[in-house]
């Protein structure tokens, strides 16, 4: 998805650049490489012309003169030409020339100045010593080589400026110092001619530069557009694959609830082919009895454009069977706020609902079918153990007591499991009433006295129990107290006293059960209020319980807007406490 977004973003970026000056987007390094390439590509032509002009000039200048200066000059020109030739070859053989543009431009600048200087030398040396017509020839020649330099060096005007200056400066000096009035005037015109030439070169340079920049900017844009197109294509393919291979039925609908496209899962779920579903109203997949309701919901969806999620609909399959599907329906709206299409994603939850129903039924059955026989077992044993039926031999009584105790243990576990199930399914409801905390604590102590005696542990209230009231479920709060007291009894050494306090702490009333047990192992502290948790798995066999008690207590106390916790006790043992808000 993010790729698609990126792709669209790049396209927007490219489009935005088009409307601004695209030339700004050209890479300056690439533009410079283009300029250098342009300058070097003209070098062979320039050299050829220089050789031709040089030969003509040498022949013309040596007429009736000493041969040595002419040869010297021609030699200079030849050296410059050869060096330029080498420069050209060096440039062409540099595999990384585009990375070395600054260096190649510098060498060419030096070359241009040297070439200009050779022509300048010709002006300085030969002009004064020639007859009139040869002076005209020389002036014409120099003007020609200056002008010829404009197209040669147009890709870099400073090169031309250096080249032309090397010719014009000596020539101007010679003309100005010749002593001839006309020549002095011409000397004044040469800088003007120079300036105009440089200006033209500068303008041409600008045109070239603009061209290069445009070329690179468009090239760059083309690459980016291509990349964006590729990304969009990939995202599109990915999206198509998501829908195609998804185990969830996906349907694309229009604003009139007409199907436009469906994936394979939808075909499988409803038993229709994509071609059969497309073009028809999606209502054929909805039970006719729900059509009116569907229309209302659909109108609301199209009007509000708010997506629907976890909407359960009874759907009709081709074979006439119905399935319950959970739908997520999302209207797609474009930038202009128009509804483009509606995407409906559905999952068959029939089996899941059936499983939930069966779980509920199972729990209910468990509750009834296990408790009813236990009622008979515990009831019978209690009647025997209470001595209602007369005294039995001691061994028999010992065994019936064992049987009663263990039946009770089994019952406690069943009750805990049922409580957890109720908590999970949100069915645990409380019956809050205003209770005096001291009464409740005393009631719990009386109820659990027998349990304590079994472990040879006494429950004792320490200090004065608060008489303040809480709003809580009486039965459930007793269940919490029973849990804490029985845990304390189970883990206390024989003969110990478990102390119970109930005191006011700010807006809270805090009940605490203090034992002298072995304490809570470090590794167990974090999960003590979790499910099926006991510090030592052998404990459950020795002491009874499924390890659900504290998990249930925590949930119960939280439902009564309180909190529960524990801490180490000074002198050994543990204090388990819960706090409930004081009832005002």
């Amino acid at each position: 998805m993010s790729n698609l977004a990126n792709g669209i973003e790049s396209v927007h970026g490219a489009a935005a650049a088009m409307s601004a000056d695209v030339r700004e987007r050209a890479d300056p390094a690439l533009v410079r490489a283009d300029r250098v390439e342009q300058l070097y590509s003209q070098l062979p032509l320039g050299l050829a012309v220089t050789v031709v002009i040089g030969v003509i000039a040498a022949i013309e200048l040596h007429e009736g003169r000493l041969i040595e200066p002419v040869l010297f000059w021609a030699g200079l020109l030849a050296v410059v030409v050869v060096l330029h030739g080498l420069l050209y070859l060096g440039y062409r053989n540099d595999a990384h020339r585009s990375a070395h543009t600054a260096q190649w431009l510098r060498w060419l600048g030096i070359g241009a100045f040297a070439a200009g200087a050779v022509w300048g030398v010709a002006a300085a040396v030969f002009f004064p010593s020639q007859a009139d017509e040869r002076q005209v020839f020389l002036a014409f020649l120099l003007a020609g080589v200056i002008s010829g330099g404009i197209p040669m060096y147009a890709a870099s005007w400073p090169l031309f400026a250096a080249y032309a200056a090397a010719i014009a400066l000596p020539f101007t000096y010679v003309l100005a110092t010749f002593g001839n009035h006309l020549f002095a005037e011409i000397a004044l015109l040469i800088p003007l001619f120079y300036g105009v030439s440089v200006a033209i070169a500068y303008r041409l340079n600008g045109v070239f530069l603009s061209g290069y920049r445009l070329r690179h900017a468009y090239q760059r844009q083309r690459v980016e557009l291509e990349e964006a197109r590729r990304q969009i294509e990939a995202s599109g393919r990915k999206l198509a694959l998501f829908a195609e291979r998804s185990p969830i039925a996906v349907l694309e609908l229009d604003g009139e609830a007409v199907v436009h496209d469906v994936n394979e899962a939808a075909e499988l779920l409803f038993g229709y082919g994509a071609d059969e579903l497309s073009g028809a109203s999606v209502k054929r997949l909805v039970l006719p009895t729900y059509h009116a309701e569907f229309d209302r919901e659909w109108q609301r969806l199209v009007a509000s454009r708010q997506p629907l999620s976890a909407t359960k609909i009874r759907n009709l399959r081709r074979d006439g069977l119905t399935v319950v599907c959970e739908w997520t329906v999302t209207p797609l709206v474009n930038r202009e706020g128009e509804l483009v299409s509606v995407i409906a994603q559905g999952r068959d939850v029939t089996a899941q609902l059936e499983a939930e129903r069966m779980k509920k039924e199972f729990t209910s059955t468990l509750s009834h079918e296990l408790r009813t026989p236990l009622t008979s077992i515990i009831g019978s044993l209690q009647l025997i153990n209470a001595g209602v039926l007369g005294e039995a031999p001691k061994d028999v009584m010992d065994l019936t007591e064992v049987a009663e105790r263990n039946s009770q243990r089994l019952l406690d576990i069943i009750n805990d499991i049922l409580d957890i199930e109720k908590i999970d399914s949100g069915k645990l409801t409380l019956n809050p009433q205003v209770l005096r905390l001291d009464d409740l604590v005393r009631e719990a102590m009386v109820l659990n006295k027998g349990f304590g005696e079994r472990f040879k542990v006494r429950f004792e209230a320490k200090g004065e129990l608060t008489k303040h009231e809480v709003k809580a479920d009486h039965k459930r709060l007793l269940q919490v107290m029973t849990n804490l007291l029985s845990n304390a009894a189970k883990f206390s050494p024989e003969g110990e006293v478990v102390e119970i306090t109930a005191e006011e702490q700010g807006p809270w009333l805090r009940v605490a059960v203090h034992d002298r047990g072995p304490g809570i192992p470090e590794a167990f502290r974090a999960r003590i209020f979790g499910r099926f948790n006991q510090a030592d798995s052998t404990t459950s066999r020795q002491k009874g319980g499924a390890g659900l008690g504290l998990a249930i207590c925590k949930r119960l106390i939280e439902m009564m807007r309180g909190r529960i916790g524990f801490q180490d006790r000074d002198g050994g043992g543990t204090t388990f406490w819960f706090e409930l808000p004081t009832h005002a």
Partner: protein
Amino acid sequence: MPERALERICYVEDDEDIQRIVRMSLERVGKMKVEVVSDPNLAIGVIARFKPDLVMLDWMMPGMDGPTLFRKMKQQAETATLPVVFITAKATQRDMEELVALGAAGTISKPFSPKDLPDQLRAIWAKLP
């Protein structure tokens, strides 16, 4: 609180084992007179003949459940005013509240303690007008 002590109990319950335990509990521990009915369809006739002080109904019974029987009793002149206590293993708090609202005298959840059952019933009896 009724002037005389609680003596005669009619118990409608399909489970024979529980019938026996309840009978033993009420007769031996509570020193009460007990009539047990297994078939809820015959219950109204038995109750009318036995004239108990209080009726105990099981919640879940084949044929007719406790609440249905309770509503039927309400429609019969001989049984309409009798206090009814439900014994149940699965009723939720809400179900119980609903029954009390309908006029049930009380509820006892299974498993109950046969040692304490007579006292539980007497406590409910004591609260009656």
